[in-house]
């Protein structure tokens, strides 16, 4: 005690300096990741037949007025919606996964832990196999609308159960698993009765595809992100506190149940929109947040933006790879995401362990 209080001011100043450096490093990392992401978007746009150059494409994206008619069609009509869809869906899944892991206090949670993707697949199957539309009057979008409606109904059921049973992670996960198996069974029923053509269509839907992207859908994704992300940021203090344990967060004045419910609502919205637009891409929401955590830790000020960026980076990389592996063929993204993310993920795990051992 005595030797430590001789220069408390000096040590405190050191600590403050180190803290500020950490903060700057965190900002630097987020800016760096955002810059890499914008390069990937441009790369995504030039990948494919048409021989676009990087610099020219970048200029056309920044200033649409200089585009030639051909560039106008290829860049603005065809490729940019897909590239931006990859970015927004990736960010949505990254954010949803990060907060799901936080509120369930479980590193294995992802946006679809609570059965949302099975529900969405079941909704899509209802549309594809039986031709049913859950939401009337949506026209050609009824597969998407069904998937979204079923995912949202599932999360409402989940809310109902947690109201009866208390908002604990255990109850939420168990009810979620029950949902997952229920919808998988229902889906199997529909698959059993489906024709070969319908089955092929259904499997293609489940494998996921960015080809269904449009400016309208990109707009919806941006809008949802623009609502949910600021809300999560505003709760970042409470979410960080929750990571220290429920009791401790409560002692600091966090209303833990309310926080869990409101964040779950946000996560449900994000993942329902993502899954209904591009199919069940599970890996991104699990690994994106883990990569962010290994880089900046779990302070939500860095964790949340970086989870979004990591998710977006993985999806953007996936989009590029799905076109580049065999020229002329666009592979379903569900098949590619794991192949893109896992090598990087394993590298990080290995690097992390080394640091702990030293």
């Amino acid at each position, binding site marked *: *005690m005595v030797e*430590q*209080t001789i220069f*408390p*001011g000096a*040590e*405190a*100043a*050191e*600590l*403050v300096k*180190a*803290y*500020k450096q*950490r903060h700057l490093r965190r900002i630097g990392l987020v800016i760096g990741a955002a810059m890499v992401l914008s390069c990937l978007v441009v790369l995504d746009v030039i990948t494919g037949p048409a021989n676009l150059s990087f610099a020219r494409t970048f200029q056309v994206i920044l200033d649409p007025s200089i585009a030639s008619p051909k560039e106008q069609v290829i860049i603005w009509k065809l490729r940019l919606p897909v590239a931006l869809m990859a970015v927004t869906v990736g960010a949505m899944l990254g954010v949803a996964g990060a907060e799901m892991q936080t509120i369930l206090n479980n590193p294995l949670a992802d946006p679809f832990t609570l059965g949302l993707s099975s529900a969405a697949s079941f909704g899509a199957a209802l549309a594809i196999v039986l031709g049913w539309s859950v939401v009337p009057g949506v026209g050609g979008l009824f597969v998407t609308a069904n998937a979204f409606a079923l995912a949202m109904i599932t999360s409402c059921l989940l809310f109902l159960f947690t109201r009866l049973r208390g908002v604990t992670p255990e109850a939420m996960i168990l009810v979620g698993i029950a949902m997952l198996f229920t919808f998988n069974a229902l889906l199997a029923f529909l698959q059993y009765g489906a024709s070969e053509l319908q089955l092929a269509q259904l499997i293609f839907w489940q494998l996921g595809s960015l080809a269904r992207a449009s400016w309208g859908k990109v707009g919806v994704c941006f809008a949802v992100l623009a609502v949910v992300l600021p809300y999560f940021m*505003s709760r*970042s*203090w409470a979410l*960080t*506190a929750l*990571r*220290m*344990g429920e*009791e*401790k967060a*409560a*002692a*600091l*004045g966090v*209303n833990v149940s309310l926080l869990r419910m409101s964040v779950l609502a946000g996560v449900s919205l994000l993942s329902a929109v993502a899954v209904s637009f591009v199919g069940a891409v599970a890996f991104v929401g699990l690994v994106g947040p883990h990569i962010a*955590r290994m880089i900046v*830790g*779990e*302070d939500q*000020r860095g964790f949340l933006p970086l989870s979004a960026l990591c998710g977006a980076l993985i999806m953007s990389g996936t989009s590029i790879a799905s076109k580049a592996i065999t020229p002329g063929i666009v592979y379903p993204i569900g098949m590619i995401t794991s192949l893109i993310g896992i090598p990087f993920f394993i590298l990080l795990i290995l690097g992390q362990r080394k640091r*702990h051992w030293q």
Partner: protein
Amino acid sequence: MSGLQAQGLGFSYGPKTVLQDAGFHSLRPGHLTALIGPNAAGKSTLFRLIAGLSRPTSGGITLEGCDLANLTNRARLKRICFMPQFFAANAALSVFDVVMMAHKQLRGWRVSDADMQTVGQALSQAGIGHLAQAYVSDLSGGQSQMVSVAQALIRESDVYLFDEPTSALDLRHQLEVLTRIKQAMRARQAIGIVALHDLNLAARFADHLILLGQGRIVAEGPPETVLRSKAISEIYGVDVEITTGPREDLLVHAYAS
């Protein structure tokens, strides 16, 4: 009416009664009270009731004449700082950040230079400056406990509740932490309650003892009186002998009866 008072507190988890008719007389500002009692006597529950994290089924608590039940949860947790029992979070959060979090309680994340100075000084004074950049998931049990105490002491409250703040600490750190708590209570004129299992530490540091057994407050008063009372042997189920140590302090010896 000054100080912290409780009357007729009752609480049960389902059919299991944890506290009944528990009450204590006014605890005075600047004093440190030790809450002692065997396992499952209701110590943590009593803390949760005072902090407002659970609602009592009967009875009430007043602080300086004001009924705590009339305060909102938020206002209550500003006046009463509760450090829950052992904290072993596996979060990738740095020690500096978690202490900052406690300091910024409910005021969001906008951190000023003054906030950083305060946290830096608190860590330095708590003797955990060298851990500032470490993740709480990498700390040992004792280290996380010291962080917990630092988190509690950085807050400015009228009442501080520490649930076993020294259970994972070595001898030297036990003495240091309790000394720091006691000094802080005196300097801030705050009411401090510490739940302790070690009766010798309770005898050494507390100005006042509360003995809890089977959900009731069995004895209350200066350490000398409570420790020499007959109740203590009965409640703990051991023979207790008190002697005076080499520095005029009370020593508690327990023998299996």
